[in-house]
């Protein structure tokens, strides 16, 4: 999991800043002291919260691009922070999860935010925007889950053989983006840790969507007030493109953009294209 942040670093109790990448970590504990969040931050400007997908927080060129204009805050989902795997056990369902994130934004004193999310994280972002419509100014969803159609089922990535996962998430199973997210280190112990963290990240997020990723967002989505941008990888093999229409139809002000040469994670396979769509949307 080269490049993945949640890879063996100690659980940070204090803020840290890497001189090389300029990414700082902040630790904030919510939920009566039971759920510790580690938040990666970079950049100056209006606040953008990035909710990552179900494979662990992965700082990418896309987030670097956003950080040139915005203050990017990227929290790790409960359970995926190194040293705190059991934090997720205190979050019983989606309602708890959304309130934990709401509390996190309060604690970070971010009253007025823009939300960007990918996959599972895009569902979380959409739920957040439905919970507190007045807090969210812009909503950018990259290949979100959260809705369901029987005629176009979302593939359950948790049931795929590990070696098949890259081909489902990426257009190019052997491309650089796939390697950055899924390849394991050569060192045997580090590889075991990376595999464990990947599986655990899927379990910790899968807890909120098993066995069908429809937990009622369709009943709440009308509450969203922010303008929305839907970004979809043209060759998404996990979440079919019909869901772009499903989201667009339900969101009050939504625009759909298709990214060529990308699968379920276009911001990783085509970071410049996606940044060039998302940045102006957030600015405008």
């Amino acid at each position, binding site marked *: 999991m080269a490049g993945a942040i949640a890879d063996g670093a100690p659980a940070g109790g204090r803020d840290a800043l890497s001189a090389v990448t300029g990414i700082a970590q902040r630790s904030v504990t919510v939920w009566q002291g039971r759920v510790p969040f580690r938040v990666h931050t970079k950049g100056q400007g209006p606040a953008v919260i990035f909710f990552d997908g179900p494979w662990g927080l992965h700082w990418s060129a896309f987030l670097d691009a956003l950080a040139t204009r915005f203050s990017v805050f990227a929290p790790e989902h409960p359970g995926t922070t190194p040293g705190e*795997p*059991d934090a*997720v*056990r205190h979050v*019983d369902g989606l309602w708890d999860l959304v309130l934990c994130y709401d509390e996190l934004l309060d604690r970070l004193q971010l009253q007025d935010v823009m939300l960007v999310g990918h996959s599972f994280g895009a569902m979380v972002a959409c739920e957040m925007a439905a919970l507190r419509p007045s807090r969210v100014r812009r909503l950018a969803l990259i290949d979100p889950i959260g809705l369901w159609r029987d005629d176009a089922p979302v593939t359950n990535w*948790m*049931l*795929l*053989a*590990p070696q098949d996962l890259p081909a489902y998430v990426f257009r190019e199973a052997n491309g650089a983006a796939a390697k950055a997210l899924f390849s394991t280190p050569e060192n045997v*112990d580090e590889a*075991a*840790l990376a*595999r*464990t963290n990947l*599986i*655990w*990240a*899927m*379990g*910790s997020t*899968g*807890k909120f969507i*098993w*066995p*069908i990723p429809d937990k009622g967002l369709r009943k709440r989505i009308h509450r969203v007030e922010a303008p929305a941008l839907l970004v979809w990888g043209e060759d998404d093999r996990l979440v079919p493109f019909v869901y772009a229409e499903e989201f667009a139809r339900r969101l009050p002000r939504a625009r759909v953009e298709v990214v060529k040469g990308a699968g379920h994670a276009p911001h990783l396979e085509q970071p410049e294209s996606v940044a060039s769509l998302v940045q102006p949307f957030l600015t405008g």
Partner: protein
Amino acid sequence: MKISAFHLMPHRELPADFERRYPSVWVTPPWWELADARRVGQYYNWTLDELLYAARAGFDGVCTNEHHQNAYGFMPSPNLMGSVLAKMTNDLDVAIVQMGMTLPTTTPPVRVAEEYGMLDCISGGRLVAGLPLGSPMDVNLAYGITPMEHRDRYREAFDLVLKAWQAKEIFPWNGKYFQLPMVNLWPRPIQEPHPPVWVPGSGSISTFDFAVEKNVCYCFLSYAGAKAARSMMDGYWEVVERKGLEKNPYRAGFLQLVAVSETDARAEAEYARHVEYFYHKCLHVPAQWFAPPGNQDYRSLLAAQRNPVRRAEDPKTLRYRDFVDKGYVIAGSPATVRDRLIEEVVKGLRVGNLMILVQIGSMPHELTLKNIDLFAREVLPSLREIWDDDGWENHWWPERLRTARQPVGATR
């Protein structure tokens, strides 16, 4: 020793190329292509007849179990089978061993307490109450329970069932997964304070820790034989000792595949293809389905990734002689089977409650009866008294059945 006959109720006639044509025997095998309801009715009746035959032939108990959406063993309701067996064996000193009704998928779980109460009443107090966690394929895939909540739900359901059996007063249950305002179980079981509890497992350390914590019988349901189970069972006995409990062999159960014929050569001629059918077709499941993300806790997952001690060999690469050599199956003449069972399984693993899988894969009805008959006449009598001299009490067996069964001649 207590020796029970175990049955999975498998599909006995899968096509020869099944494992190449279909991705899995569990969850996704297409019913309309592979099965016929009338024929399946025949399988259920054969299964009942075979277990009843074993009961009459002298086995101490008959075991059924719960699985869903598969051709490997499809008794979605073990208690439907168990109630027939209970009624039909009322004249015999045979235990009804339900291995059993799956706790995390039964809602509300007092249903388990109720149905087991019924079975204990119908059988006159002959029930062994298996309280299984259920396989991930059944619980997470077929029945949709969140993998990360699987064990938590199990523990809560377990405590609720035990309390429902024993409580003298009506009580409210305000659990995380189940809320019941007025629990007042009808009927209560005959056995007091409750029927003996067995917890089946497939080698997970947290399951046998749980069994020790609750002072119940841990049953290792293994298809890889005693050699592969040795380190796991040694670990179990270490935990028992560390907790200051007596190393009573009856707190361990073990499932063994057995095929008996007149000679070793005849056993191979008669059983080889059925054994291979079982390992090649009935266990044909994508490996990752045995542990969906979240099903194993973080520490166990990391330990498994760091140290894949028991990385199972692919049984599809093995043939009958491999299965026999490795002890996956104990097969051969009565003498061969008797010696290997005693040495490798009973004494090797320190097992007091032995379960014998008497019908394996495609094994037809007549051959199954032969296997049961030879085992009951030629093997079982030499096992029965093994732990007697040590004076152990089988606390995990119905009290009225703890003395040795009188030898009963098989009546075909």
